[in-house]
């Protein structure tokens, strides 16, 4: 018979927490998948255009920059391909990332009523977030696939490398989301600030301009960990000469996964403290 001990004196032990997460992972995964299915089914049930709404903001951003560039209000022509193609792909990939940052917090927030009532593996909600991000990302990628077909971009084996790149982009976004999560639950300021911050961060990432456009002091933006991932995903998709080595990408991927695991542990330790303050 299983025994559970809840004690004031028990120190949270990282290794033991990790083992507990591992043990409950299959249950958490099944539940998280079910939640994601529920959310995706329900989200667009009461709308006419449905999923299209998820695509409008990045497409609008792209449209603005295409217009600015065409009219020579700004001039960004170091892109190596059609600017329109370049910027649409960029904003789509950025929307994948920003969605991945906000989703973990949203998922916890939306499920607060059950979090304070039911004891279930909390990782389920992160798995829900992951699948929801993947779902929305696939829609974004369909747009990108459409441009590849329309613009007759040559497809090679390298093109498929975008898959791990996008996956790393998603996990990287979730890392930021997970690390922000405890603070965002305690202080709503973070939730208010996040959209604005992500907007600024987009311009600190080569989304509407190419890395080669950076000069002088602005080169510091290349240190942004999102940049190499997003840029290489775009390069592979558009058949451009990739500026990022596979090794760099693999390194970022590895660090991302380590931080993600740490984020899961942090979340589990934090959750009982957060639930006290949720008070629903």
């Amino acid at each position, binding site marked *: 018979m299983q025994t*559970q001990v*809840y004690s004031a004196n028990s120190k949270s032990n990282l290794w033991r927490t990790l083992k507990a997460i591992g043990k409950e992972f299959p249950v958490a995964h*099944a539940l998280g998948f079910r939640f994601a299915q529920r959310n995706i089914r329900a989200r667009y049930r009461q709308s006419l255009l449905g999923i299209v709404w998820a695509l409008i903001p990045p497409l609008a951003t792209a449209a603005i920059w295409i217009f600015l560039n065409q009219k020579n209000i700004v001039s960004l022509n170091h892109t190596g391909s059609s600017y329109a193609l370049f910027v649409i792909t960029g904003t789509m990939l950025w929307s994948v990332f920003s969605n991945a940052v906000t989703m973990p917090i949203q998922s916890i927030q939306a499920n607060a009523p059950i979090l304070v009532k039911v004891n279930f593996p909390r990782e389920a909600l992160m798995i829900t977030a992951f699948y929801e991000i993947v779902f929305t990302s696939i829609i974004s990628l369909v747009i990108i696939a459409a441009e590849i077909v329309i613009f007759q971009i040559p497809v090679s084996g390298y093109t498929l490398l975008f898959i791990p790149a996008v996956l790393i982009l998603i996990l990287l976004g979730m890392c930021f989301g997970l690390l922000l999560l405890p603070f965002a639950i*305690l202080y709503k300021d973070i939730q208010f600030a996040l959209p604005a911050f992500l907007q600024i961060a987009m311009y600190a990432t080569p989304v509407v301009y190419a890395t080669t456009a950076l000069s002088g002091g602005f080169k510091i933006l290349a240190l942004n960990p999102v940049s190499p991932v997003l840029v290489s995903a775009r390069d592979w998709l558009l058949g451009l000469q990739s500026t990022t080595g596979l090794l760099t990408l693999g390194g970022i991927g590895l660090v991302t996964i380590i931080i993600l695991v740490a984020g899961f542990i942090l979340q589990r330790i934090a959750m009982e403290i957060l639930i006290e303050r949720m008070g629903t």
Partner: protein
Amino acid sequence: MMMSKDEILVDVSHVSKKFSRSLNKGMWYGLKDLGSAVFGSNQDRSILRDGEFWSVKDVSFSLRRGECLGLIGRNGAGKSTLLKMLNGLIRPDEGTITMRGKIGALIELSAGFNPLLSGRENVYVNGQLLGFSKKEIDQKFKDIIDFAEIGEFIDSPVQNYSSGMKVRLGFAVAAQMEPDVLLIDEVLAVGDMGFVLKCLNKMDELRTKTAMIFVSHNMPMVSRMCSRICLLKEDKTTYQSDDVGAGITQYYGGFRQESGSFQGTDKVEIKNIMLESEGHSSSEEGLVTVHHGKDLILTVDVICHQPVHQPKMHLAFYDQEQRNFAEVFNFFDHVNAEEIVGPVRFRAVIPNIPFSQGQYSITIGLNEYQNGQRNMIFRYQSAVYFLVESKQHGWSPIQLNPVWEIITHPSTHS
């Protein structure tokens, strides 16, 4: 599985939990707690910081299979906090909780429903949330629908459900659990009478198999369900006993006896209302305690500023749930005064009070009859309170005491 009656399934040892009164401080403390949880600093959790208070303080009990502990107390006494700790949602700041076996919580789960999805879809989501696999839900699905009495609505979106239907469906899913320890938080306050009875039957069925902890404000329900009682008081002391009735009486004793509304004319002024039993009177001791089966004497002193024709006093007894369960209308059988004026004392001796343990109030009314017409002089809701002490405390405020016998081989002729 081992099903020994003696195994202790719940062991709560000197458990305390503190909370912050202010939201801002709470957020800041939350951040600090987070830091010390992650980096494992040695802060003493048993010290109250500025603005904090003990929500639960030094509670201990243990519970075996087949036992049901009633957790009662006024709002804010810490019942829900304790329940959350038992459920592993929040951690105690002092003490240790040990739970053995599968823990189930019978809570109202309709909050987790997605309004746009059908009842069927929500059953699967909630079922999995409570730890069932998809296959198990498939098997139990019919039972869930039958229990919830949802019928054809099962494929409609939940937003079209009545609030009662939502609660029934949420509860029906939770009722399928087969836990070793069952936590129940005031779920039965909702739903119509038929559903409440169904839930009670379900809980009776589970009671023998589980160690149950039942949080409720509904005392008849507590006395029906529980074999033990734990009263959490506002001063953070606890009262525990196997005598559920005694605990309930203490709980009721913690409320101020507020007399209710007074409606009346200025024809008659009430000077004093007094209760007496076995030589003890309310004028000396405040609340009079009547032992079950003893007499209760009510004295009402009034001054009639104007003559009252053919007065008739009537009484109504209310229990803590504000149920009017007994009445007295026999005034004219004993007294038939043509007219009263000036100071007058009404006195009623009510023999053999057959009430169960608890606190009761008496509502006093006075009418006059003139030319065949009835006029109200006054009606004083819950004018006076008293306690009944009894070994008998059940559902019902009235406990009858018939004479029983067993006749072996009764002859059918006699």
